[in-house]
Each structure stands twice: as C-alpha cells, then as structure tokens.
C-alpha cells in the first residue's frame, strides 16, 4: 500500500489499526526521500536510523490514540528537537545540537507523529524563495527549475513531493502561505499567539508564528489540533480553551459574508492569478457565501512597515549568535574580535543586510522616523482589518500576485520583498490565514488563494476554506 499519497487522517487510521506498521511507514518514507530528494532537496538534516528507531518505539506503544499516530511529519530547520542538528539554514549554527525539544516538537511527539527530519529554509527565515539557505537551493516539486517559495520552502516541497504527509513551517510575513501557494499545497498561519514559539529560533518576535502544511484543509486542521494551545514558556501565547479545529469542516457556509479587498486591485496581478481569484470568488458564491467589498486603506504601506519592523526585531534577536555557546566560532585576538569574525563569517548576505537595516532604524536619531513611525502605521493597518471584520466573516485575496519564479531570476532584494505584499498585511495584524491551491497557470505552476479569518477564528476560517476546497475539488483535488 502506498502510504505517502494519503492524507493525515488516513495514515493515522491505517497505522492505528496495525494494517501497516509504523516501521513500514518509516521505510516507505525513507525510500521516497532517497529516491526523490537528491533532486528536490527539501531536507537539510535527516538521520534515517533515528527515524527507524522512532518508528519502532511507536509500534511498541500501547496507546495508539494520538491524532498523528504514525504520520510522517517534517519540521522546518528552525525548530529545536533534542539531540538533532538545528541550523535555521545558517552557517553560524552549523553543528549546533539542540539541547531540548521545542513545544511543537513535544506536542507532535505526544500526538504520535513520526518526525522525519528538518527541512531547508531561507537563513533565519529571511527570504521568499529558500535561495538564502546557507546550504543549498530547494527545487519546486512541480517544476524543478522554479523556486518552492520561502522561507519554509523545504516544508512545502516535502509535502508536495510526497516525502512527508504533513509538515511544520513558520510564518513571519508569509513564509508558510507563499511556499504553499508556489508548491500547490495547503498552508495555515494561525493567529499570532495560537501556537507556542518556545524552541523556535526567533526572527521577528512580534510576528513569528508556527503553522502546518498539508495536502488538504482537513490535514492542516488536524495538525493544528496537535500543536495549538497555551504555553507559559511563550509569553505571547494566548490563553484559550481547547478547541477541535475540524469541528466545523463540511458545515454549510450559506450566508457567510466574505470580503473582497478593494485596494488589491491597485496591484498588478498575473492574468491567471486574477482569473483564479474570480473562480474562487464564484466557488464561494456557489457554496452560498455572500461577497462584499471592504477597504483596507493602508494596505500599500504594509510592506515598508514590515521591512522596518521585522529587521529591527531581527537585529536584536540575532545578537545572541556570538560563537560562545554553540555553533560556529571563529577565534579573534580578543572577545570583541571573536564576535565580529564569527558573525561576519557565519551570517549570509541577506541576514547581514537585515541586521544592518534594523540596527540603523533603531539607532539614536532615526528611531522615531522609522521604527516608531512604522509601529504607528502598523496600528492603522490593524484598525483597517478590525473595521473590515465588523462587516464580514472572512476575507479572500490571492496569496501571491504571481506564480513561482525561476531559481536565480530575482537578485534585487526589494523585488524579492514584493512577493509578500498580500501576506504581510495580515501578519502585521496578527490574524489567521490559510493558502489553498486554486488552480494552475499556463506553465502548470500552482496558484494559491488566501482566506483570512477573524482573530482566533481558525475554526470558522477552516470551515470556509474547506467549502472552497470542495467546490474547486474537481480540478485541484489530490
């Protein structure tokens, strides 16, 4: 039985029944990775013996009730997993062995998941194509000469290429949704604070959020069930009651109000993306939803706001990498020089660029004009969303304005940043959003549509996304 083309729910049920052992699932997964990953390069650290050992431990377990029992899950290389190498795609962390499990890893283990390995990413999650990885490029499984998107490119590619059933990524300005769109999988960024970031290597702490990739909306909902929840070790963690995120899947969305953002029209969209957007709006209407126009007047300011705030936070977060306690260390004549040499050699160009932008915008004399100004505009953007959500239940917009681009084709950083124009505004407001496959362009590259929910309304967001997925199912179903 071919396990890897199945959904999370199917694999867990097969593994639970004992029809196929977790060890056999592990062997199939390893074979798939050995066969495909020399071309795709989704994984950056993987230890096959450890995967087999974990599978045997799962087979020996009496309690097989975990929602992810026996399900092969890949995790992004910025999440700590005890006794494995965690590098966040950076040379400065090469050789770093995690001394503890991130909360999400602990939760995956508790849910019975078979954690497969670490996936490639843009260094410290800074990028939109995974080309900023210090190690190698990941290829889009649909067309290998194209990027998989980023920064969680490896996690999206692993799911698309059936090298894992589901995966975890992290999203600061679009790093789950954009690669999901480019690879043709489903990617969910939960509400800021919904999933604990304890053990996630920090990039921009007021924005970072962990979320799942899956083949279907339901897969991401089941994954969210496994990883969500309050955690006192992350002080931004939101205190919520336990919810079942699959509860509303399949329930009618008749009468739900869905907002179309007027200002999205001011941006140039690839023709096929525009058509796919219109098709998805029609699909929502067919499912009984009511479409309304809403306005996010400050939408166009989101990108500059983000590129002030995120590098500012990054410049502070990345100060911890100094060569003293772990990872790369390049000795200098004194401590100061050791720091400088380690950081100059250990960080890649994009990371240095962002550290320097952040250092500049936070420096005396510029703080008010840049960081403070951006934080105020961020408030206005958040207010715009709040106002829109007083009228509608969810928003729809394309995840990206174009489909995937060719490896090496974008070298200008500003042009690269533009890939995130439709995902960043939502991140600034801390709202949950999901990207689902909605079609393909003429070249056969996937297109993704983004649905945005109210704060902490993942259940309803997933309900709506599921309805759209069913409507579009015919041509995009797995």
């Amino acid at each position, binding site marked *: 039985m071919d396990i890897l083309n199945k959904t999370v729910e199917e694999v867990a049920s097969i593994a639970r029944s004992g029809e196929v052992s977790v060890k056999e699932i592990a062997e199939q997964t390893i074979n798939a990775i050995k066969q495909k990953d020399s071309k795709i390069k989704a994984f950056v650290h993987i230890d096959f013996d450890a995967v087999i050992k974990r599978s045997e431990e799962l087979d020996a377990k009496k309690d097989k009730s975990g929602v992810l029992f026996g399900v092969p899950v890949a995790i992004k290389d910025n999440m700590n997993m*005890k*006794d494995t190498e965690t590098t966040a795609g950076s040379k400065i962390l090469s*050789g770093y*062995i995690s*001394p*503890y499990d991130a909360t999400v890893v602990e939760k995956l283990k508790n849910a019975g998941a078979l954690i497969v390995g670490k996936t490639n990413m843009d260094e410290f999650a800074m990028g939109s194509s995974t080309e900023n990885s210090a190690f190698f490029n990941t290829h889009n499984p649909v067309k290998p000469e194209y990027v998989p998107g980023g920064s969680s490119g490896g996690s999206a590619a692993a799911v698309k290429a059936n090298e894992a059933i589901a995966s975890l990524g992290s999203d600061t300005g679009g790093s789950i949704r954009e690669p999901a769109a480019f690879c043709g999988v489903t990617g969910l960024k939960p*509400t*800021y*604070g919904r999933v604990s970031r304890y053990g996630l290597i920090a990039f921009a702490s*007021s924005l970072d959020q962990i979320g799942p990739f899956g083949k279907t909306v339901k897969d991401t909902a089941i994954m969210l069930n496994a990883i969500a929840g309050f955690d006192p070790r992350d*002080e*931004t*963690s*939101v*205190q919520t009651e336990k919810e079942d995120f699959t509860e509303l899947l399949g329930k009618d969305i008749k009468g739900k109000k869905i907002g179309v953002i007027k200002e999205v029209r001011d941006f140039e969209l690839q023709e096929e993306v525009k058509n796919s957007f219109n098709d998805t709006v029609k699909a929502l209407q067919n499912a009984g939803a009511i479409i309304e126009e809403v306005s996010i007047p*400050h939408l166009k*300011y989101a990108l*500059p706001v983000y590129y*002030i705030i995120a590098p500012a936070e990054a*410049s502070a977060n990345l*100060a911890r990498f*100094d060569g*003293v*306690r*772990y*990872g790369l260390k390049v000795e200098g004549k*004194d*401590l*100061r020089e*050791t*720091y*400088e*040499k380690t*950081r*100059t050699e250990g*960080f890649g*160009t994009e990371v*240095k*660029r962002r*550290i*320097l*932008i952040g*250092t*500049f*915008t936070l*420096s005396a004399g510029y703080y008010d004009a840049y960081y*403070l*100004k*951006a*934080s*105020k*505009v*961020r*408030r*206005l953007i*958040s207010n715009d969303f709040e106002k829109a959500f007083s009228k509608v239940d969810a928003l729809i917009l394309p995840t990206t304005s174009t489909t995937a681009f060719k490896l090496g084709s974008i070298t200008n*950083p*500003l042009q690269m940043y533009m890939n995130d124009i439709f995902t960043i505004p939502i991140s600034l407001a*801390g709202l949950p959003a999901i990207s689902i496959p909605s079609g393909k362009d003429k070249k056969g590259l996937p297109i993704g549509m983004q649905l945005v929910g109210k*704060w902490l309304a993942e259940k309803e967001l997933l309900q709506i996304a599921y309805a759209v997925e069913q409507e579009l199912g015919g041509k995009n179903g797995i």
Partner: protein
Amino acid sequence: MDLKKYEKLAALNLSEEEEKRISKDLTDIINYFEILKEVNTDNVEPLVYTKGAKLFMRKDEKQKSLNKESLKKNRELFNGNFYKVKKIIGD
C-alpha cells in the same frame, strides 16, 4: 549612511566587496521607507504586539532547566559549569 558605524554596533566587519554590494541595497531600501511619510500618524499609538498577548504570572516553583550533558555537546564547559571566553577586563 555611515555603514561602518552600524557594522560596529551590530558586531559585523564586512569586506570591502560586501560593503559595496550591501550599501547600495540599503540606500534603496531606506529610500523606499520614505513612502510612510505620507501617512498621518498624529495621535496614533504604536502597535507592537497584536491583541491577545496578556502577561501572565506563573507559580514560583522549581522547574526543569537545560541539562548540562546536552549543553556539553555544543561547547566544553569550564569547571563543569562555565563557558570560557577570552579575557575582557584590561590589566
């Protein structure tokens, strides 16, 4: 922009070639930020953390901390408990 000044603040020391490359990008990026001047932000409070994050207190109880054995996998500990760095106090 005086790149050297910010390199020093960020504990970086770029090569001339890298400086040249990055300095043009930084100028373009910082110019791009100018568009924010259009936005009237009088009487607007800055937003740092989006709603939801509420500070909470935990009980003052002993908790597990990192295991020394696993820290040693990354760096040798001096006297069993310390990280060793070069001298930072002058004579």
